[in-house]
């Protein structure tokens, strides 16, 4: 993976010394212009899905890469505390450092933009250890991630969530009332039914739904190029029409992307896999809204 390096932060208008990233929670001296929380983030987007395994974290990771490579400053926060897979996919490695004002996210350059990342996995020594936390403890951790981390001036903050509509989602909506949302579904009706519930959740919490993305939308057999619709067809678009929401696009199953994410090599391989164009189109559509 890419080792996050701290260099000159023009946006923070101060200079942070290069620190050995192996140390945990080293105090870094900064000027007082850095402030904790996400008040200086232009657009906060929570990504939700009803069911697990539909490709939500994958979508967050690739979207972050696409936005950053277009020159934007993007934050990514993983609130899936039991299964924080986003940090592996993004590929930034290191420890969370703190300054007087709060915690600093890990940061890496991607094209002309940057990605800043916060995940529980940066705080945990043993990655195989189960995080068996009940609601209140998860809520407290997420509030820290949102309120104590100095996210700085970002164009976007993408928040990955676990499947469902529970503690994590409610906490995010409470802390960031002006949050937008993107819903991810697979084409199956079973998955779509769960997304309907999420639409209801967004309505109830006042989140602005930017649209629906359909993942696992077919697989092109490498041998005969027949496109197999493994999980059915059109569920995402039907759902979007049914709810009066924008359909942002669909993404096929992509083994090469899966491989890149497993190895934390997404950011080096941006644009080079089968589904890259699909994601690029989705981000273009998003930027136009």
């Amino acid at each position, binding site marked *: 993976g890419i080792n996050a390096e701290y260099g000159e932060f023009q946006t923070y208008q101060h200079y942070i010394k290069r620190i050995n990233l192996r140390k945990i929670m080293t105090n870094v001296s900064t000027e007082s212009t850095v402030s904790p929380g996400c008040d200086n983030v232009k657009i906060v987007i929570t990504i939700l899905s009803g069911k697990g395994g539909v490709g939500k974290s994958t979508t967050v990771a690739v979207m972050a890469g696409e936005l950053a490579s277009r020159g934007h400053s993007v934050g990514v926060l993983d609130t899936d505390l039991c*299964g924080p897979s986003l940090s592996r996919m993004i590929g930034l490695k290191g420890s969370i450092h703190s300054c007087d004002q709060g915690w600093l996210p890990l940061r890496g350059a991607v094209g002309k933009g940057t990605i800043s990342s916060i995940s529980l996995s940066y705080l945990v020594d043993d990655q195989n250890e189960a995080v068996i936390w*009940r*609601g209140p403890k998860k809520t407290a951790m997420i509030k820290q991630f949102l309120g104590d981390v100095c996210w700085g001036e970002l164009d976007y903050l993408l928040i990955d969530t676990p*499947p469902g509509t529970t503690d994590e989602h409610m906490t995010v909506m409470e802390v960031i009332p002006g949050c937008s949302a993107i819903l991810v579904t697979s084409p199956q*009706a*079973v998955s779509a039914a769960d997304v309907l519930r999420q639409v209801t*959740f967004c309505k109830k919490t006042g989140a602005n739904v930017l649209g629906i993305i359909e993942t696992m939308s077919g697989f092109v057999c490498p041998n*005969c190029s*027949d496109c197999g619709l*493994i999980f059915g067809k059109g569920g995402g678009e039907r759902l979007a029409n049914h709810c009066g929401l924008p359909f942002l696009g669909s993404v096929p199953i992509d083994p090469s992307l899966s491989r890149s994410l497993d190895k934390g090599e997404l950011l080096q391989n941006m644009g080079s896999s089968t589904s890259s164009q699909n994601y690029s189109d989705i981000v273009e559509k998003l930027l136009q809204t």
Partner: protein
Amino acid sequence: FAEFGKQWYQRRVRGSVGVVDVDVCGPSLARIMGVNGQTVHRSAAGWSPVYTVDDIAVMSIDFLLESEDSAVIWRGDKKTGMIRQFLSSVDWGELDYLIVDTPPGTSDEHLAVVSHLKETGVTGCVLVTTPQEVSLADVRKEVNFCRKLRLPIIGVVENMAWYECPKCEVRSEIFPATSGGAEGLCKGEGLRLVCRVPVSPKVGRSGDEGVEGEGMPAEYGLLVDEVVRFCG
């Protein structure tokens, strides 16, 4: 996934089976078993579960919701309370097997099930994964969870292990096993790899329609046999 394995119980197992869906926020089990939209009845003995055509008893929050898009926006303590009710206030009758479907993760729902069934005990757990390392990383945590709480692990099922093209019959890996797949994980953790199941459009379709489809992957049979053997 596990729902399809459960459907096979009816054919292969001599015994009564009950299924409870503790994924309170995303209760898809009822639809997959073909009984969504039904209601539960309350009697002196408690709630009565909904029975499928094959006499499998099902309990899910789906039966208590007003409509398909009602959102269950509950925090952990409320979910825990509901799951306790599913386990204690439902008139299951005499069951040979009770299968509990859980959401991903290791949180309130899982703790609720384990703590409530402390007296009867949980006979075993089946862990389901897909081949990629991202998925295996989470399953290692689940293994850790089971060990911490002393839950016996029956074994691991690798889902979506491959895809067979219906046109040319060539097998493709749709989620490459970059770190040895479930087999590697099982070797490392000393667990049994019960079966590897391919992705099948038929399974997806039958889940959507709630009907037991023709041409279910034969691999599910291995899962059923192993569970019966383990519990026997």
